C-alpha cells in the first residue's frame, strides 16, 4: 500500500469513551457478560476506525479499545502468567500478575484483533503490542533469576506472536516501551531484548518510547539522551518519540548520533485538551525536518489518545493531518 510522504497515524490507542469505561467496570462487577462486552468492544473499535479515517490518517489502528490498560491485556494472555481476577474493581487498574515458572511457547491470540481491524478499513493498518520490558515491570517474577532473563524469555514468546501477526497480514507493527524512560539504566539489555523480539519478523517495526501516559500524565521526566548510543543497535525501523509536550530539543540527538531510523514524530500533545492548530503541527514538522530527512518522518501524536475526550482526540488528529498537508504542499507534494 503506497503511503504519501509524512504518513500520519496514531500511536495506538484512541479516546476511551466514558460509557465504555463504565461498561468495562460493570463487567468486572459481573453485571454484564463477556459476550456482551465483546460485542460492545466490536462497536467501539469500528467507531474508532471510522474516526481515524474521517480525520484523514494514513495508517489506522483498532484504537486499543479492547484493552483495559497496556499491561493486563497481555499479562492475561501470556502463557504461564497467572493473573488474580479478583484483584481489581476498576477496569483501568492493574491485575496482580505473577510468573512462577518458565514461560511456555503459546499464542497470545492477538491475530483476531488484527483481522477485525483489517476487515473494517481499506487503509494501511498498524498493530501495537506492549513491549517485554514494560511487561516485566508490572508482572511479578518468582522464577527467573533476573529481570533481563525474564524479559528475554518474554521476547522469545512474543516473537512467535509477532510472526503470527505478519502471517495474518500485518505490515506495520509497533512495540511500546514507555518504561525505558523510567528505568534508563536498563537500556543496554533492553535493546538486546527488542532484537530478540523482532528477530525474523518481516514487517516494518516501530519502537515507541515516551515518558508515560498512565492516567493521562507523564510517569517520568528527563530527556532521550539516555537512549543513545545503545538504541542505535536496535533492529527496528522507526523510533516513535514524544516532542510536542516536551519541545524539540532532543531532535538534536538525531544529528549528534547519525542513524538510519525513521522518526515517528510526536507532534500532538496528548496530555492537554487544548487542540493544536494545523500551523503549530506544521511548525513542529518543519523543526524535525532540520534533523531528519522528509522520507524518514512519520507524523503522529506523542502517545495514545486514550485519555482525551473523543471530540478533543478527533479534533487533534484532524489538526495533525491538516498540519502535515501544509508541509506536503510546501514540499511540492
Amino acid at each position: 500500500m503506497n503511503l504519501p510522504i509524512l504518513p500520519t497515524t496514531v500511536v495506538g490507542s484512541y479516546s476511551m469513551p466514558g460509557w465504555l469505561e463504565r461498561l468495562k467496570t460493570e463487567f468486572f462487577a459481573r453485571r454484564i457478560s463477556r459476550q456482551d462486552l465483546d460485542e460492545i468492544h466490536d462497536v467501539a473499535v469500528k467507531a474508532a476506525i471510522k474516526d481515524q479515517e474521517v480525520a484523514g490518517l494514513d495508517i489506522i489502528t483498532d484504537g486499543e479499545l479492547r484493552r483495559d490498560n497496556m499491561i493486563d491485556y497481555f499479562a492475561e494472555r501470556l502463557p504461564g502468567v497467572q493473573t488474580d481476577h479478583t484483584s481489581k474493581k476498576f477496569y483501568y487498574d492493574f491485575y496482580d500478575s505473577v510468573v512462577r515458572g518458565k514461560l511456555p511457547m503459546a499464542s497470545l491470540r492477538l491475530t483476531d484483533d488484527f483481522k477485525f481491524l483489517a476487515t473494517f478499513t481499506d487503509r494501511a493498518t498498524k498493530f501495537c503490542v506492549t513491549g517485554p520490558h514494560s511487561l516485566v515491570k508490572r508482572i511479578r517474577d518468582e522464577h527467573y533469576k533476573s529481570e533481563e532473563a525474564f524479559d528475554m524469555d518474554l521476547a522469545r514468546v512474543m516473537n512467535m506472536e509477532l510472526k503470527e501477526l505478519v502471517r495474518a497480514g500485518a505490515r506495520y507493527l509497533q512495540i511500546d516501551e514507555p518504561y525505558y524512560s523510567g528505568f534508563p539504566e536498563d537500556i543496554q539489555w533492553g535493546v538486546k531484548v527488542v532484537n530478540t523480539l523482532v528477530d525474523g519478523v518481516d514487517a516494518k517495526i516501530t519502537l515507541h518510547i515516551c515518558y508515560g501516559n498512565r492516567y493521562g500524565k507523564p510517569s517520568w521526566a528527563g530527556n532521550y539522551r539516555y537512549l543513545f548510543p545503545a538504541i542505535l543497535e536496535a533492529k527496528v525501523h522507526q523510533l516513535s518519540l514524544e516532542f510536542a509536550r516536551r519541545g524539540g530539543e532532543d531532535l538534536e540527538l538525531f544529528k549528534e548520533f547519525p542513524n538510519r531510523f525513521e522518526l515517528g514524530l510526536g507532534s500532538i500533545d496528548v496530555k492537554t485538551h487544548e487542540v493544536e492548530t494545523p500551523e503549530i503541527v506544521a511548525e513542529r514538522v518543519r523543526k524535525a525536518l532540520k534533523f531528519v530527512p522528509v522520507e524518514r518522518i512519520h507524523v503522529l501524536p506523542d502517545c495514545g489518545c486514550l485519555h482525551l475526550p473523543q471530540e478533543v482526540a478527533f479534533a487533534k488528529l484532524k489538526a495533525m493531518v491538516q498540519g502535515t498537508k501544509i508541509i506536503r504542499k510546501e514540499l511540492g507534494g
Partner: protein
Amino acid sequence: MILHLNHIQPDRAALASSVVSTLVSIAGDGQIQPRILENLNVHLDWVQYKTNFREAVTVRRATRGAELLPWIEAGVDLRQVQPETLKSEFISALQDVDAGASRKRIYLETFAPMRSCLIWRFNNLFWQHLPLWESASGKGFERALPGGKSDANHPDAVADAVADFWTLLKDLENHHQLPAEIFVLEIGVGTGKRAAMWLDRFRALDRERGTQYYPRIRFLLGDYSMPTLNRAMETVREHRELGSFLAVDALDPFKSLSFLRYKVLSIHLTNVYDNLPTDEIVVRDGKLYFVEVRSYVPAAAATHISETFGIPITDFERTVTRLLEVGPQHVHPSGVEKGVAFWRAVWDAIRLEERFVAIQTILDAPLPTGLKPQLLESFVGEGVMNQRFQLSSGAVESFLNTVPLLHPRGYLQVQDIFVTKLEDYSRMFRGPGKMDGSIVNWVNGALLSQVGAQAGYDVHFAPFLYREGSRTSTLYTTQRE
C-alpha cells in the same frame, strides 16, 4: 416522630437524656399537630463548632420540584440547647413549618446550593480585610485555631518534611533527573512562617550535606489575599531571592501556574481545603437530596444590631449587601471602626436555613467541576441509607486543578481536618462552622481518595502526631501505578 441520636458527647449524656425526655413529653402533650408529628424526624447532633450557623433547633423541609414533601426534619444542636428552653424553642421552630418564610427572620438571600451562599462572600471579606478584623479582635487569625497556632508551623513537622524532600532530590540526582530549577509551591501561605521555617531548615540541611540544592530552589508562595501575601513576603525576606509571591486562586491553581505543568516537586497546603466552598448531600431512607440554604439573621438580633449602629431595620439587609460590595471601610458613616464592628456583629448573628431538594440520582446534584459523576455514583451507592456528608466541592476542584502541576516524582501534601471514612459522617456534624471571621468545614477525605485514584494518585492520610490532641491529618499523594 422518629428520634435519631447521631452523637452523644460522653460528658453530655445527662443533657442528651434530658433532651430526649423533653421531646417525648412534647410529643405526648398534644402541642404538635398530629400531621406534623407523624412525619417528624428529630436528629440530635453534636455540632463540631461552638460558633456555627444553626440555632438550637433547626427545622428542615424537603422539596421535589414545587412540591413540599410531608416529612420534616428537626435538628437539635446538643451544644447550644438548654433543657429549660428546649420545649419553647422546639414548638416555636415547628410553628413556621408550612410557611414559606419565617417572620422571625431577616433573610439575606433566596435559597441556593450551599457553595453559592452568601456566607462565602463573608469568608472572602475576611481574607481581603484581615488586618481590619485582627485590629478589632486584638488577635491574629491563627489564635482562633485549636491550640492558638497553626500545626503547619511545628518545627519537627517542618524538619521532617524538609528531610523527605531532600531525599527525593538526592534520588533524582542519582538518576540524573534533577531539574535545573527545583519548584516548590505553598498555597495559602498564612503568615509565611511555615515557608520561612522550611527554607531555613532546607538551607541548613543542604549546607550540612554539601548538596548545593538550595540555590536551585524556586519557592512559590500563592494566596488570593494580598494582605496575607504582603505579610508572608516580610516573613521570608531572608530568602527573598528564591521566593515568588503570586495571586493564586486555591480553587484553580493551574489557572495562574499552568507554565509549571508537571514541574513542581512539592506542593503544600495547610488549612485551605477546610475553607473552600462546599455542597452537601443528604441520604434519607436511601433517597438522595442536596442541601440548599439561605442565610438570615434572627429578627431580634437584626433589630439589636440596627439599633446599636443607628441603622433603620428596614435598611438592615441593604446595609449588609453594601458591606459585602464595598467593604467595611465604607459601610458606616462614622468610619471604618464602626463598619468593622457592624461586620463582626452581623457575622456573629448570621444563620443558615436549610431545605433538602430531592434528586433522582447523584448526577442531579451540583457536582464539583471536573469530578467524574460515575465516581460519586459508586461512592454513595455503597449501601448508604441515612447519611449527610460534604461534597467538599472546592477541595475536589482544588485537588484536580493542582495535581497537573506536579512533576512525575512530585507530591502534594495537604494538612487539614479530614473525614477519611464516609461512615464517620454519622458520628458528628462536620460543619460549616465559624472560625473567627472565616468558615470551616471538615473535608471529605474519603471522596478525595477516590478522586485521586481517578486522577492517577493514591491518596493517603497520616495523623498529625507532632501535637497531642491535634485533629488534623496530612493528606499526601503518591503516584498511582
